[in-house]
């Protein structure tokens, strides 16, 4: 396969993942401002930080309002992580690597782009938000379904999956890192209603507010939330799950190509740590420091994959 095609697949799936993530962050933000009587613009501050676009926002807007923040996250082309920017970038990559995709997968992303372009042509009204978020999730689901249902399990599949999980691991780590302070033991000793809202918001940002109850008891506890998002191998957005998938997809490539790269070492090492360290140990070391290092390591893995498999644009 061309190094350019592998690169295109990798980024196509990173962008699709990011689009969904941005939509989920908006959803969590909206929810928070609904449940809190003293809703402040601070909530959106956190959302923008989780999306890693806080500084970019200030370059475009004078002050922080919920309306501007939503618009920035949803459809501003000046924001490369906005839902619309991501869908467009994902679709452009898909168009470039079209020969690598099944017709069903291509049509799913192309139709997603056609529909979202229509829906997001104008600034969205607050009343329309639930429907818009729903459409984004549904469209992303259709892309995923077409991809899983029709693609050959070959290198094309592996590079796509690797893009998905590098992006997802980064997103989950960021969401946790922005809110790490509300998970600190000192603060959480007494679970105020304010804390509960924050905790639930973290879970919502990764669509895990329901599944949490199935795995832990109904009560929200910071250590359990951190455990769920970092170490729980059954939670599809956890760091451990992402790395499990990264290691297995890189493993398929190593077998098919008959060679290993630095990326294989890095991914396996990270997975090993995720499996062996308890959440108590991580919290003791310092959650913020841990997440910062994880994000750096994840970026390094991305570069190593790109070098090892000769990606180029």
């Amino acid at each position, binding site marked *: 396969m061309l190094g350019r095609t592998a690169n295109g697949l990798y980024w196509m799936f990173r962008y699709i993942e990011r689009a969904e993530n941005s939509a989920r962050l908006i959803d969590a933000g909206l929810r928070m401002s609904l449940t809190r009587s003293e809703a402040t613009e601070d909530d959106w501050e956190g959302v923008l930080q989780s999306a890693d676009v806080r500084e970019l926002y200030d370059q475009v807007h004078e002050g922080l309002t919920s309306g501007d923040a939503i618009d920035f996250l949803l459809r501003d082309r000046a924001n490369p992580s906005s839902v619309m920017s991501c869908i467009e970038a994902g679709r452009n990559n898909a*168009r470039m690597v079209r*020969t690598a995709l099944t017709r069903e997968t291509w*049509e799913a992303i192309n139709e997603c782009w*056609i529909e979202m372009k229509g829906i997001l042509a104008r600034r969205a009204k607050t009343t329309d938000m639930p429907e818009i978020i729903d459409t984004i999730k549904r469209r992303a689901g259709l892309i995923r379904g077409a991809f899983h249902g029709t693609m050959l399990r070959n*290198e094309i599949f592996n590079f796509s999956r690797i893009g998905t999980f590098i992006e997802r691991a980064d997103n989950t780590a960021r969401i946790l890192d922005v809110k790490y302070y509300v998970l600190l033991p000192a603060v959480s000793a007494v679970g105020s209603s304010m804390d509960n809202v924050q905790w639930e918001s973290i879970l919502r940002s990764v669509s895990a507010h329901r599944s949490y109850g199935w795995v832990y008891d109904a009560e929200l506890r910071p250590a359990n939330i951190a455990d769920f998002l970092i170490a729980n191998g059954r939670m599809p957005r956890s760091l451990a799950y992402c790395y499990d998938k990264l290691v297995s997809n890189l493993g398929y490539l190593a077998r098919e190509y008959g060679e290993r790269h630095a990326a294989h070492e890095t991914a396996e090492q990270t997975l090993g740590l995720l499996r062996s360290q308890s959440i108590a140990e991580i919290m003791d070391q310092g959650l913020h420091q841990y997440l910062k290092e994880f994000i750096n390591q994840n970026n390094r893995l991305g570069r190593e994959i790109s070098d090892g*498999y000769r990606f*180029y644009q």
Partner: protein
Amino acid sequence: MINADSSPRQPYSTYHQWYASQDRNRLIAKSKEAEKIFRKTGITFAVYGHADSSEKLIPFDLIPRIISGREWRRLAQGIEQRVIALNAFLDDIYHKQEIIRAGRIPRELIERNDAFLPQMIGFRPPGGVYTHIVGTDIVRTGEDQYYVLEDNARTPSGVSYMLENRETMMQMFPELFHQNRVRPVENYPNLLRQSLASLAPAGCNGKPRVAVLTPGIYNSAFYEHAFLADMMGVELVEGSDLRVIDGRVKMRTTRGYEAIDVLYRRVDDDFLDPLTFRPDSALGIPGIMDVYRAGNITIANAPGTGIADDKAIYSYMPEIVEFYTGRKPLLENVPTWRCSEPKSLAYVLEHLAELVVKEVHGSGGYGMLVGPTATKKECAAFAEKLKSRPGNYIAQPTLSLSTVPIMVNKGIAPRHVDLRPYVLVSDKVQIIPGGLTRVALKEGSLVVNSSQGGGTKDTWVLED
């Protein structure tokens, strides 16, 4: 579709019965459905110079154009004869130039032509094939009366529409394909791949590696390039993906550099090799012509084939066919006045309102004058252009093209069409039974180009 006595023409009889039994509203709904299918599959093309309309659809008409098996066989013989002559002509002008020596074609017409590539002199491509893929443009003027408009021996496009139009028709009206015995076109990508692979360089061991070269996603025909690569199961590459290493053309893969044996290029000669042709080309591969001349890659179609479909050469096609096949051409040429000749120019200027005037190197329906539909002012302006550069133009009479029905708001209406069958050349000549039928959607119009508001329809060749 309909005879003068208002009975349906023979190949249309089964279809006509079906059509008469259809509910109009259902057909209109189907028509919209077709558009949706095209939009979501991304069957779009780009129109140059329209920044905001970067992806347009070619209108699709759902009434098929139907050709009887008998009529097709005659047509196919004529096309085959012509394609064989084209290849013989190319081989001759790049070698002994006997046709020039025999005085049938003026030397300067060849050697002063931009499409003639001196780099090809004395070189014979693998298998002696120059035009691997040809799309002959044909118009019908009456029963068994066909004229060739253009030979399209460089890089004919549009074959993806032939395939998608058929696919769409089969999806929407499966019953029609039970009732009519329509010859298949779907195996085109397989035939193309086999045909290309069979012409790999002599030194190629094992399974030849084929790739499609595209100028990139901003090219108007990118969809088609991606589609063909996908359907053939071969790599789609851009110039920047390729490099000449150790005398081979290699592509940058996830495992390192790997050699290509056959390149189906959809990039013009000028841009193919910046070291040989346009130095500013970013679409080509520096040094590919050296690899080619050393016999280490097959390029399809061969560089320099453009000389055979040049509009000035076109007027000599009857002589060319006769010279190389020893027989009269089975298909007619449209009578052509070469404006470079003073007598012809005088005639053309006098009869401008009856003629179609085209640029010798033009394509896509740009820069032409359709006399009968042009205003006096347009004619006068064009006459000035003609006088200042007569050698740049040829003129042809407007033929009374036959029409086929299309769906319009009020029912069906006749429109002018042309036909582009696709031909694959290897050690044999294969003509795909069908092709691309382009329709001039505007009432009375003769211009079928998609960039000028033309549409397409499925083309059926019946088994009979």
